[in-house]
């Protein structure tokens, strides 16, 4: 079992890789969505709301397959019309090195991984947006009024007064989302990204140690999530402001 560390290690790296991308992409996109939803005009605020509700109301798996199949479906249609189609190539960026006498190759980006990152990011954005919006509305309109009374534009007020407060307020809820995000990356296994769970599958086919292998994977996720949430917690404590 332990002899398969050269599968578990790259699997873990890919899981973390997906996690970080999803988190960062979800953060910025989510922030943007929440600002639009909270302060945008009627139409674009409705669009943002619609996006958020749609993503939150449908399974991640369906979103993943939808995005994954989209190029295939478009190609099938283009082909039927006799038009040139989107290349769904076997391209990939990978790194590869010799560790302790084993050759370890990690595919950082290919068709599947890209689809996985995009889906996880788009999905997480909708969830993060809800946390941001909650924090923004808890800051209240008074703070924005006070900012405007000093001659700041609405945008400057949002940027310098509402956002800093909202971002600090959101930390506890956001940390929760952030620490549990790693476990959702598992879905990309269904479109063939070789992350931790996919590696576990492979090991099971080799050793038939179903219970031990999956338990080990469970343990790895559990530790990862615990560590992340402890780390975010201590950051939160250190950056706290009286009265916020």
């Amino acid at each position: 079992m332990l002899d398969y560390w050269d599968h578990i290690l790259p699997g873990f790296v890919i899981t973390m890789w997906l996690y970080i991308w999803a988190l960062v992409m979800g953060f910025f996109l989510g922030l943007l969505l929440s600002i639009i939803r909270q302060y945008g005009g009627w139409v674009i605020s409705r669009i943002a709301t619609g996006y958020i509700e749609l993503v939150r109301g449908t399974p991640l798996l369906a979103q993943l397959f939808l995005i994954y199949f989209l190029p295939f479906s478009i190609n099938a249609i283009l082909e039927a019309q006799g038009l040139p189609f989107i290349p769904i190539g076997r391209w990939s960026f990978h790194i590869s090195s010799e560790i302790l006498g084993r050759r370890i190759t990690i595919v950082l980006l290919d068709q599947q991984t890209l689809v996985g990152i995009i889906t996880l990011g788009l999905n997480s954005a909708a969830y993060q947006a809800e946390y941001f919006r909650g924090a923004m509305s808890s800051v209240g309109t008074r703070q924005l009024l006070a900012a405007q009374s000093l001659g700041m534009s609405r945008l400057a007020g949002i940027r310098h007064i509402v956002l800093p407060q909202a971002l600090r307020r959101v930390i506890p809820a956001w940390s929760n989302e952030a620490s549990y995000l790693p476990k959702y990356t598992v879905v990309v296994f269904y479109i063939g990204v070789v992350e931790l769970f996919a590696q576990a599958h492979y090991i099971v086919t080799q050793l038939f140690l179903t219970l031990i292998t999956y338990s080990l994977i469970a343990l790895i996720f559990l530790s990862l999530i615990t560590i992340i949430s402890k780390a975010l917690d201590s950051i939160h404590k250190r950056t706290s402001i009286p009265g916020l």
Partner: protein
Amino acid sequence: MLRIADVWKSYGNLQVLKKISFEVAEREVKVIFGPSGSGKSTLLRCINMLSPPDKGKVYLCGQNLMAPEINLNEMRARIGMVFQHFNLFVHLKAIDNVSIGLRRGKGLPKEEARAKALKTLARVKMEDWADHYPAQLSGGQQQRVGIARALSMDPDVILFDEPTSALDPELIGEVLQVMLDIAKTGTTMVVVTHEMGFANAVASEMIFLDRGIIVECGTPQHFFTSPKSERVKRFLKQIDILYGRHEELLKLPNEEGSK
């Protein structure tokens, strides 16, 4: 300096302000009072266009704020506002609360804004608390920072919306004292308040607002000795019962023999 002409404002079906007109001269202190819900806060928000009037005109130094080509942010930087609930920026220290308007509203460089903010904090006797967050200050101290925040912008006029009504009685005196000091330096002020001692000391004219209408205006002497309207009389009697006790907290100018 400030002229409000024929201002109307409604929220939905509710007509909050009806044909309000008055003028505030330079260095003048105008006190507005009246029952709850009469539209006082709304009037102040109409003046700095935080909620623009439906109809009418607001002139600051001859410029009509309702004109479409006007840059409202620039104009608001010239109209200070002190809020009933302070509305300090809770994520910023006292000093940054005061300097942020200078930096983001007026575009002053950081150091200059800071120096000026510190000077302004001294004017409200809060320089020793510069590095405290709002949550670490008492209500009275918070409101003094709020006043410094408005004052630091060197506004043409400062609007006060019941600056002491959210304060514990023992904290009201220190805030009124600061306002009194500012008034004496010749700052133009529009003050919504029920502190009649303060009004008596510095107001050149008082306006009684009820249900969105200016019912009566006149000097403090006029209101305290011979108010005309029945509504004013009744209201002043209630105010006496509620607020009369704060008068002695003020070092009134007439006690010092200046009046």
